């Protein structure tokens, strides 16, 4: 078999797509242990040892307070992405958050939903869908709580089929009938602040419903079975999962194979993800990454690949400017990804991110005094900068531009001094983490 040699480039590719990048140490370690062991580590986690490594996040000297401090919910999750030894679990949780996008709910409910996605994201999809359907944040967001038999609310029923499970292959009658089958949950107020939900049989429509041409006295649990056995379901979900990991075309035969795996494993997610991560398409064009990093992946990846802990709260507003704040998706359809990430405004915010981490972040990203040395030649300047920012991917063209900068930087008639050697380090490091190449993975 050709092309099976497992290299650092392979490791970096799969760590970016299935996580938040690899540190130089991870790249060399997992290149040595091979593809099988690498994918096992991503899929199952380390055999022993802590779930989270590295320094605890601290903002203004204090621990994060995700429930009470504005924006700390996003920082709290970002920190998991940066320090977890199960990066794929966090990346998949981000996928589900985009897939079952929920917003505008109280933080404790959002964190509870986040826990649900994290703990069940690899398991049975019908189980996850059932959990999401009963999740208070989702029920309040899509008006499922207090949808009663007298006047069913169609909001959740419609998105369940359109966005969560099918994408197509249903009718307006199906929407109305599913809405009837999903009646019966009521909201319960606890004082002025918090709400929960409870099941109320008398508000459920017990009559017969006709859904996808079948008729029965369907309950919410029946609806989950009906939609996840609908012929459109498996191809819809496989296509979406594939596109989360690669821009390569999903061929008919690969899609059929994924659908087969999904059904054979009783609609479990993990075997499908494993198959995608093993697929050669994931490792095509290792020298030219072509997916745009989502803002959350950009920020978490920058911190993770350099081992930089979260010590500033700026990431929340920076992510807002880039167009992706965790727990605040723009609508139930999630975020528009791909090239839509790169508006002029979000690109400017990606540059501002570099300004923030290099000047105000923590070591090792923060540039210390004395970072540059006058005795270095151009390549040494560039290599030192590259090492300091976790050796991110650089195209040959960009590398040549940076070597050229280092070559001519001191040719302006001023005597070189150490401050200007430091300035060159700042500039090179900045461009390596903010330039066009840094947006790709």
């Amino acid at each position, binding site marked *: 078999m050709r092309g099976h040699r497992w290299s650092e480039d392979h490791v970096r590719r799969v760590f970016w797509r299935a996580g938040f990048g690899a540190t130089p140490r991870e790249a060399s370690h997992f290149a040595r242990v091979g593809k099988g062991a690498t994918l096992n580590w991503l899929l199952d986690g380390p055999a022993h040892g802590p779930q989270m490594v590295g320094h605890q996040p601290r903002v203004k000297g204090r621990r994060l307070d995700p429930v009470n401090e504005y924006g700390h919910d996003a920082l709290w999750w970002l920190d998991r992405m940066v320090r977890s030894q199960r990066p794929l679990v966090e990346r998949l949780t981000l996928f589900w958050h985009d897939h079952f996008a929920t917003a505008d709910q109280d933080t404790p409910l959002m964190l509870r939903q986040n826990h649900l996605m994290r703990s069940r994201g690899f398991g049975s999809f019908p189980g996850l869908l059932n959990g999401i359907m009963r999740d208070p944040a989702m029920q309040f967001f899509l*008006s499922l709580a*207090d*949808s009663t038999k*007298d*006047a*069913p*609310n*169609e*909001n959740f029923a*419609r998105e369940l089929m*359109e966005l969560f499970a099918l994408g197509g292959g249903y009718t*307006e009658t199906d*929407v109305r009938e599913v809405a009837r089958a999903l009646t019966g949950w009521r909201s319960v107020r606890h004082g002025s602040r918090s709400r929960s939900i409870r099941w109320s049989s008398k508000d459920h429509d017990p009559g017969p419903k006709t859904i996808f041409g079948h008729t029965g006295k369907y309950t919410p649990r029946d609806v989950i079975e009906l939609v996840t056995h609908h012929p459109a379901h498996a191809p819809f979900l496989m296509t979406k999962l594939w596109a989360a990991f690669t*821009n390569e075309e999903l061929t008919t035969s690969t899609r059929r194979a994924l659908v087969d795996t999904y059904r054979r494993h009783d609609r479990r997610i993990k075997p499908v993800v494993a198959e995608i991560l093993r697929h050669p398409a994931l490792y095509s064009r290792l020298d*030219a*990454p072509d997916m*745009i990093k989502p803002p959350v992946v950009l920020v978490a990846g920058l911190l993770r690949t350099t081992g930089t802990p979260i010590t500033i709260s700026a990431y929340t507003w920076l992510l*807002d*400017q*880039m*167009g992706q704040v965790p727990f605040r998706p723009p*609508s139930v*359809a999630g975020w528009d990804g*791909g*090239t*839509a990430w*790169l*508006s*002029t*405004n*979000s*690109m*400017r*915010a990606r*540059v501002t991110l*570099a*300004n923030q981490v*290099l*000047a105000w972040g923590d070591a090792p990203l923060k*540039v210390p005094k004395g970072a540059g040395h006058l005795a270095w030649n151009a390549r040494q300047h560039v290599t030192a900068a590259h090492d300091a920012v976790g050796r991110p991917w650089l*195209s040959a*063209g*960009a590398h040549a*531009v940076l070597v*050229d*900068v280092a070559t001519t930087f001191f040719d302006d008639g*001023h005597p070189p001094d150490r401050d*200007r050697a*430091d*300035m*060159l380090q*700042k*500039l090179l490091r*900045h*461009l390596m983490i903010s*330039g*066009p*190449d840094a*947006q*790709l993975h």
Partner: protein
Amino acid sequence: MACYDPTLTRRQVLGRGIGLGLTLYASKLLTLDRVLEAAQAQAVPDAPVLVSVFLPGGCDLLGALPPMDQLGKLNDLRRSLAVGDEIPRMPGESRLGVHPALTDGLGGGIAGLFGAGKIGLLPGIDYANPDFSHFHSRHFWERGMVAEAAGPGWMGRWLDRHGSGDNPLQGLSMDSTLSPVLTTAGAPAAAIDDPGDAALSFGGTWGKGADKAAQVWEQLAAVPRAGAGPIAAGRAAALTSQVGRMLSPYASDAKAGTDPLAGPIAYPTGKFAARLRSLAGLIAQPLGIRVATIDAPGDYDTHDDQPTDLDKALRELSQGLSAFQADLEARGVADRVLTFVWSEFGRRPKSNDSVGTDHGTGGIAWVQGTRARGGVLSDVPDLGALGADGNLAVTIDFRRVYASLLEGWMGTDAAEVLPDAATAGRLALVR
């Protein structure tokens, strides 16, 4: 990096576009005055500007503009959302009521603008056999065609046909991301959250180092790339620095207390109003803005708690848009700006059990401006003639409105942009 001849004439700069002018400015080969002069000449001073304001979620026509001559039928359908006889009427249009929140704002808000003949209402707007999915319907409106396929937006296609190849500000989203209405096949377009904070800076560099940084950024952007993602990354890098340079003369200076974009009108608080204020200020400058988009805040997807949510959303809209209109007039540019307000669909006449309404047909839109044709420009749907599924009749197709905007306002052939232009019909929206 290519070397430019510093002796280029103004005509040569003009011929090769403002992008080149700004590159020369960045490299100190041209003064800012010369660049702005070139930009001014390139931006046709009286060119019409079309502003799209999107109300996300599906705005309720019957809640926003209750038909007073059908109030009994309306209240039979909406027990939990009853409309009282005491609500305000649209000035000069006794058949239509107006949500009280739409009377809020300068000069009586949206209702006041209608009374002044500056708003043409388009009740019942939609398309045949409407899709009740937010995302499908929204996509059709964004693209200007009822088709699932992905592709540039309708204003983006207009830019591809009539825009310049080198002015990203010609198509402007006042947002952190570019509106799908404005995505193009090739023409540059921009998203701006705050024009005072658009310039790129490279922390830790100063003096010649900072100049060098800006130059190297351009070089990195220009590295040859292949594939959609890499090309988009290089292009975004180039456009972002260009937008930053174009807007740098307009940044406010808190220390000096100057704000080149400041106008005479006080706006309400909030991000929507701040963005409208910036947009009015930018339109008044010679930047060549032709099409612009802005999303209204609030939750129009009122499946539950409609009274609270709709009031809040319409109030912010009415306050913001009335200030925007007054500002354009005070700056003397109102005659070349037309604002088009739209939502992806309407809502069901019958209310649900959550004090809300589900997705429906026959929505709401309007044109607004000193040159808008005032009045009610389409038929108000009849509550006595609901469709089999209990929805409102569609009384005007959005593609007819788009074709009319392109020809009646932008002055270009609609068929270049809209595949259905030949069959869409036309409607006078402008006077």
